[in-house]
């Protein structure tokens, strides 16, 4: 196709300006030369305001997630890949096979096009890896000072296979609680990046798409996985409390079985953060029938994103709905909901 624009978009030194969101020629050029170029797929290339597709038989799931993060680029990822992983994972936590993504960009006037391209390339690669192409989108530009560079909202649809019934309210006493890997990587990586904190080892975010891991797990035990949740903001503690509350049960987890990387642990100690409350972007919690726990664990460990998976505890009947943790010393502490920021309450 011949270039319809007089000059090519200057990605190397160009900046986002208000015309890029104005609906005119400049916007069309940005979409063509940046978004369509990198996201490149048939549905997008039709240049419609919507994507039209046929879905296989079954139940559809849909999920949406807005992404704002500082810094935009961090060890282990950037806002682009994060925006894909966030929605892929939310869809996958229903046991679904992801189908398509939609993306909305809010750009701040003056944002370097080079950075935007890096983000879009990263996003496209993440979508491709996850097998969930970005098939429709939208771009808006806000005046300088009214945005934080770039905000990305993604929406995804997926399809849940027959016989799979995964929901946060299905945990039952006796079920096993599995965790796919080490906790706290993402939150600490982001904090270190944002505040320019130096640790001995660079801590890398775990941002990743979990749909492949979920597919393997669902294939192994389609009817015996009751709950899946990715412990993002608020960390493992929040995810477990949510599940306990939704299902009306209690839980006991074992501190010594929760995987945590030594450098993350060390950083948390310096910062005084409890890793149970620190965000993850590539981990999942699975609650399954105890009988299939070992088998599922083996399946998870064979997947690249589940190498450190562990059975961390069990679901119990508890009218108080407490999530308890057996500590290394043998005591049982309550893992409470977080209340606002982590403020010390002990004297």
């Amino acid at each position, binding site marked *: 196709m011949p270039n319809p624009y007089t000059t090519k978009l200057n990605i190397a030194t160009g900046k986002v300006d208000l015309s890029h969101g104005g609906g005119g020629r400049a916007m069309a050029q940005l979409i063509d030369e940046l978004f369509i170029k990198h996201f490149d797929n048939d549905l997008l290339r039709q240049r419609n305001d919507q994507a039209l597709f046929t879905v296989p038989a079954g139940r559809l799931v849909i999920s949406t997630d807005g992404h704002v993060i500082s810094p935009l680029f961090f060890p282990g990822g950037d806002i682009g890949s994060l925006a894909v992983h966030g929605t892929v994972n939310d869809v996958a936590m229903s046991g679904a096979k992801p189908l398509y993504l939609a993306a909305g960009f809010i750009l701040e006037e003056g944002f370097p096009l080079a950075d935007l391209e890096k983000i879009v390339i990263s996003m496209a690669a993440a979508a491709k890896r996850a097998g969930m192409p970005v098939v429709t989108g939208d771009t808006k530009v806000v005046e300088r000072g009214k945005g934080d560079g770039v905000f990305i909202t993604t929406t995804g649809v997926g399809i849940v296979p027959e016989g799979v019934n995964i929901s946060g309210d299905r945990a039952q006493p006796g079920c096993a609680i599995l965790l796919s890997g080490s906790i706290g990587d993402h939150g600490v990586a982001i904090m270190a990046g944002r505040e320019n904190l130096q640790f001995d080892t660079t801590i890398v975010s775990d941002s990743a798409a979990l749909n492949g891991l979920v597919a393997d797990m669902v294939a192994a035990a389609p009817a015996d996985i009751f709950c899946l949740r990715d412990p993002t903001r608020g960390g493992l503690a929040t995810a477990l409390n949510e599940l306990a509350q939704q299902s009306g049960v209690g839980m006991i987890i074992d501190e010594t079985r929760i995987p945590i990387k030594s450098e993350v642990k060390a950083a948390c100690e310096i910062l005084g953060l409890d890793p149970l409350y620190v965000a993850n972007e590539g981990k999942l919690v699975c609650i399954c029938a105890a009988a299939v726990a070992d088998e599922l664990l083996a399946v998870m460990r064979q997947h690249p994103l589940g190498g450190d998976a562990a059975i961390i505890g069990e679901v119990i009947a508890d009218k108080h709905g407490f999530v308890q943790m057996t500590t290394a010393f043998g005591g049982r502490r*309550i893992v409470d909901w977080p209340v606002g920021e982590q403020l010390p309450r002990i004297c």
Partner: protein
Amino acid sequence: MPGKAIRIRGVVQGVGFRPMIWHLAKQHRLIGEVWNDGLGVMIHAFGNANDLDAFIRQIPLNKPPLARIDNLEVQALDVQPQNDEFCIVASQHNGVETPLAADAATCADCLADIADPDNRRYRYPFTNCTHCGPRLSIIRRVPYDRNHTSMAEFAMCPQCKQEYDDPADRRFHAQANCCPDCGPKVWLEDRHGQQMDCDDPISRTAELIRQGYIVAIKGLGGFHLACNAADADAVARLRERKRRYAKPFALMARNIETIARYAIVNEQENLALHDKAAPIVLLTAQGEMLAPYVAPNDDKLGFMLPYTPLHTLLLQDLDAPIVLTSGNISDEPQCTCNDEAREKLKELADYWLLHDRDIVNRLDDSVARMMDGKIRLLRRARGYSPEALVLPSGFEQADNILAMGAELKNSFCLLKNGQAVVSQHIGDLAYAAVQVDYRKAIDLYRQLYGFKPQCIAVDNHPGYLSAQYGKTLAETEAAVLVPVQHHHAHLAACLAEHGVALDAPPVLAAIFDGLGMGDDGELWGGEFLLGDYKNYTRLGHFQPIALPGGAQAMREPWRNTYAQLLHYFDWQTLQQDYAELDIIKLLASKPLATLATMIGKNINSPLSTSCGRWFDAFAAVLGLHSEQVWYEGQAAIALEILATPVFAGEKPYPQAWAIDRSEGGSSVLSWQGLWQAVLDDLKHDVDKARIAARIHHSLADATVSLLNDLSRQTGIDSIVLSGGVFQNRLLLEAVSEQLRKSGKTVLSPQRYPMNDGGLALGQAVIAAARVNSVQMDSQPDSV
């Protein structure tokens, strides 16, 4: 024939009150009747006027040991007697208003019974009567009748029943009455759960302890772990197994003479040890040495005397004191039931001395310490709860209030009919088992006192689990939620204990503790307040300093040292000037760049005026637990211990502190001079004990000076000293003495802990004052 109706309120049921009245009435040739009802004891007495008057005068003088008379009202009776003698008649329970007595140490009569080979209770470990024995520890619900206690499973034999029914017997209506034939049994098990074949499990236990074994002993309010306190290996093994490496162990000795071999016991301490509550009393160690790990690096020993026949019999056979520490893993609550103890203590104990009377309510041993001339409870549980505090005037009409207490050292409080009932020490609510106990205990107390809260008082820290549960309860009970500022609650608790009336003028206060949520969202802990029950004003406080890493700063004292130094000095200069000091070397080995960023950018480094962390900072500079503390207050306690021997000979540093004005006009106490002086002393190799003493003196001096200033400004000369930091004897005594010298009245807690264990009482009276004043204000003016 003249008659009088006598109404007596207080702790008058289940303590032998009616038999005492019966005896007394007979002595005075009276006829009539006495009975228990929902308000206490009611007497209808008839006789000649002189006998009646003498009888009434004698009642308070003859009250049984466990009784407490709060109120005695006499009215003329114009009915005629129903009987021709004096009778005890059936209880009329129409509402529950009367308090339950606390568990009490074995009385002299019961001790005589178990020591007498001809007595049928000879060596029987569950001997008790209306004057002693279990109460709260065995009750399931009110009224306090045998079938509502864990004695329900044991039917009385004819002899016991006879005693129980005989008003002349001191076991008349003793709900826990029993004997070897019909009562609970004691036995010994090994680690395989096998019952040991022995005639006398208690003397066998003594033998095992002498041989160096650790025995789990089911006591009155929970399980203990016991070993020979003179056996260094046994004590070290116990520490290792319990994973409790630092906190001192409690001790029990068979008599005061034995205690006196190891510690100084003054007259008041002696009285406290022999009190019916039988608390652990912290005594100054002196004399023979026990195993070093009993109380490592401490100058005190915590002793108690046997308080059940079981303990008396056990200790009879032991010359040396025994360690008697709570039977638990690490900081979990102590076990209370046999199966739990078999399971949870399986790695900790070698043998189990068990019995088959259930412990319904967990009660830890209470702890007291003599400070500033008074015995003060530091932990209030067995022997004291659920004793009620009669509140000063003004609280008679207060709403029913449930105060949820603090987070660590939690206790809660029920306020009703002008009385406050503070629960036993519940513990650290972050432990699941404690949290379950907490909720269970609240339910039990509500049932005991027929209590429905109209108002629920909580600490204003949103993260406190007690506050969160209080919010939930307030919703389900449709009660008014009253958040209370932490340090104001400490102030008010002290006022209530000292009988200060509701409408009394405000007092000044220095409230020093670890931390509590302030009204401005900052964490407070070194506070100078002006306040009454209803309101308070913050007149002064310590310089706010960051807590780098939040709660991590509580565990690692060096963080506070660094934050303080960084606030007052240029770090680079300091590092050069004092390069040789251990603390500077230690700090240099830490990730200071990260910490500086955290403090600078306020990353998990909230500002705090904490006095507890101030102590930690100075302890760490002297090398006391600089890296880490194992329990709350450990570093501050070490600083006090270090300073004690030389304290009297030292003085404050000159210009140690300065007072600035904050934007809001309050006085801010800052410490650059003190830091400079301490660093210089360290550089000049001054003895660390002397430095520790000078630090204490400087804090006392600053506190007294600021309080005297505030007193001059406000014209108020009553001063409350409270908060956990004042459990430091040197500080409490120095500040109190100097204030008294300048003519001030000093109030500090005695019967309720000055630490967070006393917080619920303060929350309750503040809520009462506020809710009542709202009601009064909203009433239309009377004409």
